[in-house]
């Protein structure tokens, strides 16, 4: 099968087959995760692309939750996938490939965040309040992406801890190690982040108050 693939790739390079056929063959060849993994281990570019296409959209959401803007999020994603491809041999098939990729993406995002000075540009309570005012006019069109936007409006420290604890499921002890902070700091940051986010979401009517929810 690999020989056939190599032949088709060479043929594609020589413009014998149209790109669409090559893409179709790629899709067939890398339909399963196992095939993708095997291809990536052999450093086949098509397999790497298949892996990228399978997870990039999902992983970009993770990066976007940590990054100050979409361009930085894409940088994080790119950096993450370089690590994924260069360390793919370290993946043990015990867990899911997606989980492993996700872990790398989270760690890379955190590291990028630490290095990137631009992340501080959007931290203040001022834009948050303005954001609420703008969004209040659009309550009819609220979507899930707004939650992500709300998370992103939190100060960097708050949103990082919130992302790691509430969404990624890390324990405060692990977060403290990752961010080089005290465990108690992680807890307090999370509590504050949660309070801030809840207020924002309640105002945007994305979530209902707990009491109201119980009644309904």
């Amino acid at each position: 099968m690999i020989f056939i693939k190599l032949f088709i790739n060479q043929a594609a390079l020589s413009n014998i087959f149209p790109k669409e056929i090559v893409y179709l063959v790629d899709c067939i060849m890398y339909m399963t995760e196992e095939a993708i993994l095997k291809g990536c281990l052999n450093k086949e570019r098509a397999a790497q692309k298949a892996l990228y296409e399978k997870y990039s959209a999902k992983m970009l959401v993770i990066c976007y939750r940590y990054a100050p803007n979409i361009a930085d999020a894409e940088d994080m994603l790119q950096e993450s996938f370089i690590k994924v491809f260069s360390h793919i041999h370290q993946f043990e098939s015990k867990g899911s490939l997606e989980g492993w990729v996700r872990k790398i993406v989270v760690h890379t995002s955190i590291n990028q965040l630490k290095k990137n000075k631009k992340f501080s540009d959007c931290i203040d309570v001022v834009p948050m309040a303005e954001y609420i005012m703008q969004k209040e006019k659009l309550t009819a069109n609220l979507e899930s992406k707004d939650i992500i936007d709300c998370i992103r409006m939190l100060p960097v420290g708050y949103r990082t801890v919130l992302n790691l604890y509430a969404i990624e499921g890390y324990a405060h002890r692990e977060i403290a190690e990752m961010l080089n902070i005290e465990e108690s700091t992680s807890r307090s940051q999370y509590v504050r982040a949660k309070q801030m986010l809840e207020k924002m979401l309640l105002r945007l009517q994305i979530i209902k108050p707990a009491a109201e929810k119980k009644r309904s």
Partner: protein
Amino acid sequence: MQEDFSFEERIKEKISGIRIHPSDKVWKALHQDLSRTFHPGMQYPVLLFIFIILIFSSLSISNHSAFLFIYTDNYSAIVNKSALTHTETLENKPQILNKSNDAFRYRLLPITHDHKQMSEVYDYEGFLFKEAASKYVALKEHLSERTDTVIAERINLSESSISVSDLKKTNISNRELIEKKEKYNALQFYIAPSYSYPLVTQREKNNGSYYDFSNDSSSYYIPSAGLEAGLALWKPINNKWAIKSGFLINMSTYELRSSSNMNDIEMPKSEKTTNSNELKNNKPSSLSGAKLMNQNFRFSVPIEVEYMLAGNKALSFFMSGSLQPSFSVYSTGNIITSEFKDHTPVDPYLYRRFNVLTGLECFFRLNAGSFDIQAGPQIRYQLLSNNVGASPYREHLMDYSMKIGIIKKIY
């Protein structure tokens, strides 16, 4: 706890289905990066290769300058260290040396203090050395940069040969020899108890004017004690100027007194609220006694230029200026909030790790026999703000300290 869980679950549920497709340029860039990336296993051989090259280079350099000054009661000579592995003899007159004569590498090189004989100019690997003042013979300046000053004396020309094993030897950087030329370096250890406080400036004007801190006592800083310790290598440039560099560990603290903390800031309730300046503080802005210690533990590599104002060998006065690139190893603290009436803990990401400090100091140096003592006041200013732009104001640290050090000459 259940509510916490439901909140997290709700958030997770809401965002689980979101996908954002990256732009095409991400894959293109990734593709290019992957084409350049080393095979994971390749980096180790490459690093090993570089390491080996570095080791061999350093050994080669070290061997090249590994000369010894050897002497007996009767005569003395310069010798390449590698020559000591051979049993060679001294010849009774100076050799004519030049770079085409490889023999010098394996031979002892006798040098006479006799003026007449030393009037000859010897060529040594492209460098010249010749007679110096009085009974001393020194390599010419540019050679002495590489091998330090070489002095020979008490050579007995009547003796024809001597075994290397009979020779006493000492490193070429023999103290007595170098002192004759007054060229020595020094190692300096110092400590400096300091007093630190931040200089706070507003980044942007608010309503056309900067905030006047003096009119508001809600939040304010109080200077506090710190300490620094360092080790530096001192190297003279000429009689007046010297340069110094080394390592410096510094701990600075200052206190922030404020009324409450960030928990008390609540989001605006009224829909008509449009300005964040209207964010209210639940507690009145009075001093309810919060005392918060800001700490900064940093590691610096100072580069200092020193100028001697006046003095003699026993007592001299100096002034110096330094630039200190520094890295903050550990820092905790609080900053004043945007309305200047409150405080909030600083997020670790908001701390600027790398910073640059400038220092100015005046001091005296007292010769105390085998070592010198130095003491004097120092002022230091941190060029970049402690925080990286998240706060509406800049916070620059200012240190006042009394630096006390001991200096040991090394040759």
